[in-house]
């Protein structure tokens, strides 16, 4: 049979290439820990900008947190915000340049603790921007402290005996919160640790860019992700823990989606 004679060299040919690193990722090696979801979201975001051919119209805002250096990897114009202020920067940019695609890329501490006011009000004003929110339930960059989204009883370096709800309050479901606001047009929660999750996240980001182009309001995409270093697990253990613990509290799916135009 013909297929038995086929060699790797026959298959590894330019015309057979079905998946390659997008050219909108720079050649810099991600500084993220092995297995971290940031790299996947970075890649998917750049794939969308490449597919839509809007590199010259895309402006990204990097947060403070592990992805503070996101601009080292995304080959588009970017600005680095003060901690939590990314939606305010995005507002200033989008209002003065309404024809651009403007997005923020923020972690849970940045978006749901110190930047809560900027997040809520940008959503409430219905800024025509996209907010990409990475929720791993912990402060990764500063060494694994409690985040607003840290689960009950979950250990962190500032809750070494587990998060005590009486003392620390409940994990904040900010995505459910912003879904209540009329200014948001599209609110969804996704994952990137499985192939199906990555496909759906990519579709969500594509939707967000489409709605921005249609001036529908603010698109809010939460990605529930891992922090294997902060959680003190191997990457695959962390992804399993995510499915068993994070997803019951932060279930995936669309919370709000507009009718197609």
């Amino acid at each position, binding site marked *: 049979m013909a297929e038995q004679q086929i060699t790797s060299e026959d298959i590894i040919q330019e015309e057979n290439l079905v998946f390659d690193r997008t050219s909108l990722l720079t050649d810099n090696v991600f500084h993220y820990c092995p297995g971290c979801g940031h790299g996947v979201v970075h890649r998917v975001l750049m794939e969308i900008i490449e597919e839509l051919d809007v*590199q*010259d*119209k*895309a*402006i990204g*805002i*990097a947060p403070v947190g592990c992805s*503070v*250096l996101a*601009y080292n990897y*995304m*080959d*588009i*114009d*970017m*600005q*680095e*915000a*003060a901690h939590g*202020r990314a939606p*305010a*920067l*995005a*507002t*200033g*940019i989008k*209002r*003065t*340049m309404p024809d*651009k695609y403007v997005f923020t890329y923020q972690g849970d501490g940045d978006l749901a603790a110190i930047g809560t*006011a*900027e997040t809520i*009000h940008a959503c409430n004003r219905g800024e025509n921007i996209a907010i990409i929110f990475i929720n791993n339930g912990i402060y990764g960059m500063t060494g694994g402290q409690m985040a607003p989204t840290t689960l009950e009883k979950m250990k962190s370096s500032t809750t070494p005996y587990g998060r005590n709800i009486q003392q620390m309050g409940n994990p904040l479901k900010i995505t459910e919160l912003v879904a209540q606001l009329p200014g948001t047009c599209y609110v969804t929660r996704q994952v990137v640790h499985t192939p199906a999750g990555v496909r759906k996240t990519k579709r969500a980001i594509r939707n967000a860019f489409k709605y921005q182009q249609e001036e529908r309001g603010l698109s809010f995409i939460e990605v529930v992700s891992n922090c294997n270093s902060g959680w003190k697990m191997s990457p695959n253990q962390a992804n399993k823990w995510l499915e068993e613990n994070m997803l019951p509290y932060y279930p995936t799916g669309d919370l709000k989606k507009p009718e197609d135009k």
Partner: protein
Amino acid sequence: MGELKLMKGNEAIAEAAIREGADGYFGYPITPQSEVIEYFAAQQPEERTGMVLLQAESEIAAINMIYGAAGAGKKVMTSSSSPGISLKQEGLTYIAGAELPCLILNVVRGGPGLGTIQPSQSDYFQAVKGGGHGDYHLIVLAPSSVQEMYDFVETGFDLAFKYRNPTMILSDGAIGQMMEKVEIGEQKPRMTEQEIREKYPWATTGKTKDRERNVITSLELDSSKMEKFNRKLIDKYREIEEKEVRYEEIQVEDAEYLLIAYGTTSRICEKVVQLAREEGIKLGLLRPITLFPFPKKRLDELSGQVKGMLSVEMSAGQMVEDVRLAVNGKVQVEYYGRMGGIIPSAEEIVDALKQKFIGG
């Protein structure tokens, strides 16, 4: 001569920004400067020039909206008063660190804390010494009339873009609220995106194939690069100190004593010069127009001419420190001031001058 209008200082600022072709104003109300955003709102700048007007959820958000738009090469401004400026200091240090141009109006009221809504000059330190964390300076202009409130919008933007550095107009509640006649300038066009791309190649206007991506950031994790950047900033501030010092002198030529006062107190001090001269005291006035850069060299020169210098301020004595640094002990330097929202009278300043320098 251009059109004359009777305006509040706070209104003159807003009208000047529209006519200067500014791209955006982002602000948050606070007494005594809420007329700035109210005047903008009434004028509908979106209709007049396409200028963006937005009332933010806080001073912090407003300054960060400025940070974003300034990074895109836009001519943008915000305004506030002292407690609000304290909140904006975070954004200002990022803007200074990212080397972006923008204009900030501070209509100063008394503090600390919530303090008073009456005029004060007690934000001198937070204006000229940096204000937020890290080694940086704002360029600081001190208007003493409603006309200068108007004129310094153009000057402030020019300096901000020339040096890629935030400029603050340091006013106070008296100048913000008072009405005077103002000569209004012509309407200038706003810059097009193409003009911004050509003139400000660093701006985040969207990466085209013919250039590298633009990144606006104040972050540098490599210590040697960070120190190099710190030195670059210091060099910039030294250049500003060399080239951009502005001040006004009143009857300084033959002066034996010198008042130093800016803004509202400089207006009172003009009267003080007149009253003192009527009593035979040869008094002059140096009015710093730029507080950073401070007219250090000129004060140093005058330290060889006068017998004493009196810094008159509506604060507990802030500018007097810079006067003393400028003359470096060569002449006696004293302070007189009022606080709590009180504007000193010319007579009490004459008395203070006599008491401190002449005796009796």
